[in-house]
């Protein structure tokens, strides 16, 4: 482990709200608006963290622990994902499973906190969130499995470093993995076409409705955690897409950051041009993503 490997978690924690800002700006441009500043998410977080929190009398410590544990889980996940040729500070065989289940833990505590409020709407949102992520998880693990299988490495750092030499050989399988990962990123981060982050009707919300009762610093933790989650999941796509392992560390870092901004623009564009899918069609989309990854796995195993 060299001193550079402190960069992946620091960049993730520092730049992830910017990603949200870029998505919002892209959507504003598509809609013909000027849009808020790119740094608006930072201001929002700062505002929330200075406020006090209000807790319902029906809630217990589970409700208070949810946002903190969620942020801690996703913060740990940032230690596992490399950026380009800069290896992650923590890398061991099988850390991709830990990565998937750290995100699972974050979702679990968020769901528990939502159920703890005893609100019917939040229960509904929690049920849908679990339903969506149960369908997205096989796709994520299969997609990571394809990369692991193609590069003969079992840690995220090793996989993406190996991809730099192997990437072109995998060809079509890698293209399938990219599409599957993009669908997983959209579903896991509650983005259109699975969920609409801008909706304000409890009946149609999935992720947002779960956090309605959080306020002040807790809401800040939830929003910040969501941004960091978008960053780490997006980094999987960028690492798969760009041949980042080659060349100097600076160059690959610059490419990875450019790739992340590009991904944010792509997500913003998808949100602007697509409508939300009907709830009954969502399983088809997510199972489809899993199917793509499964096809890629079969292509790789041949």
């Amino acid at each position: 482990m060299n001193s550079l490997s402190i960069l992946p978690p620091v960049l993730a924690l520092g730049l992830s709200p910017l990603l949200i800002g870029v998505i919002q700006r892209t959507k504003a441009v598509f809609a013909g608006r000027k849009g808020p500043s790119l740094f608006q998410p930072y201001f929002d977080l700062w505002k929330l963290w200075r406020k006090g929190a209000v807790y319902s009398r029906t809630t217990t410590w589970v409700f208070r622990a949810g946002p903190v544990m969620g942020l801690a889980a996703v913060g740990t996940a940032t230690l596992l994902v490399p950026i380009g040729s800069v290896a992650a500070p923590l890398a061991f065989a099988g850390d991709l499973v830990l990565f998937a289940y750290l995100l699972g833990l974050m979702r679990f505590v968020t769901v528990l906190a939502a159920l703890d409020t005893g609100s019917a709407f939040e229960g509904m949102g929690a049920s849908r969130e679990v339903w969506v992520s149960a369908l997205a998880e096989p796709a994520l693990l299969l997609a990571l499995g394809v990369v692991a299988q193609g590069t003969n490495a079992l840690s995220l750092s090793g996989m993406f470093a190996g991809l730099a030499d192997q990437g072109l050989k995998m060809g079509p399988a890698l293209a399938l993995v990219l599409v599957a990962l993009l669908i997983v990123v959209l579903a896991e981060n509650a983005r259109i076409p699975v969920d609409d982050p801008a909706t304000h009707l409890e009946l149609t919300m999935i992720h947002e409705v779960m956090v309605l009762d959080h306020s002040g610093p807790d809401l800040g933790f939830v929003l910040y955690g969501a941004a960091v989650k978008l960053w780490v999941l997006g980094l999987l796509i960028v690492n798969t897409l760009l041949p980042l392992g080659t060349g100097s560390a600076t160059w690959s870092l610059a490419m990875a950051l450019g790739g992340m901004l590009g991904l944010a623009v792509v997500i913003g564009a998808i949100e602007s041009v697509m409508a939300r899918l009907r709830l009954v069609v969502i399983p088809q989309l997510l199972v489809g993503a899993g199917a793509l990854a499964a096809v890629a796995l079969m292509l790789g195993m041949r």
Partner: protein
Amino acid sequence: MKMDFLLVLVILTNLRLLAAGRLGASIRVVALQGVLVGLVPVLAPEHGPGWRACVLAAGSVALKGWVIPWLLFRALREAEISREVEPYVGHVTSLLAGLAALGVAFWLNDRLPVLEGTSATLLAPTALFMILSGLLLLVSRRLAVSQVLGFIVLENGVFTFGAGVMPETSLLVEAGVLLDVFAAVFVMGIALFHISREFNHLDAGRLSELKDV
């Protein structure tokens, strides 16, 4: 590599077809698949881009990408049936069944001695997968139009098998098969029209209940 991308696209059209909910979308996907499969003889290394392969490809693309979809859309319009596929087996289940079929195709590819030494290794499994998913579409869909689509997918598989895997198959035979399919779909189109005129539906499940009045 070009061939691999083409064949992966063909595999994806099959999966899309198994998950499709609308008849119109299904017909368009089948048309796309016909175009993709038509390009196989040109890219297959056994034939090389000779003029015969090119003529066969052009004929196949024109027939499967344009004429047959047009016939089916016409049948759809005249029969005035609903636009839903109405499967016996749900979309997600058929998608998973398709994945299983793909696994079987890859497994068969390793087992069949006939296929040893084929150069583009994805060709045989793709062809087998197309045959299997064509069968799946034939048995799991309710409407007669979907069954025609399943038949076309099945034939696409046979065509890929012949054009790509078997170098000794003459292109003339392929062209003959193509003509047969055209005739068959033509007849099926007319049959669909007559079925829908006589019984006011195209539900193959209900056709078994026919009896003399």
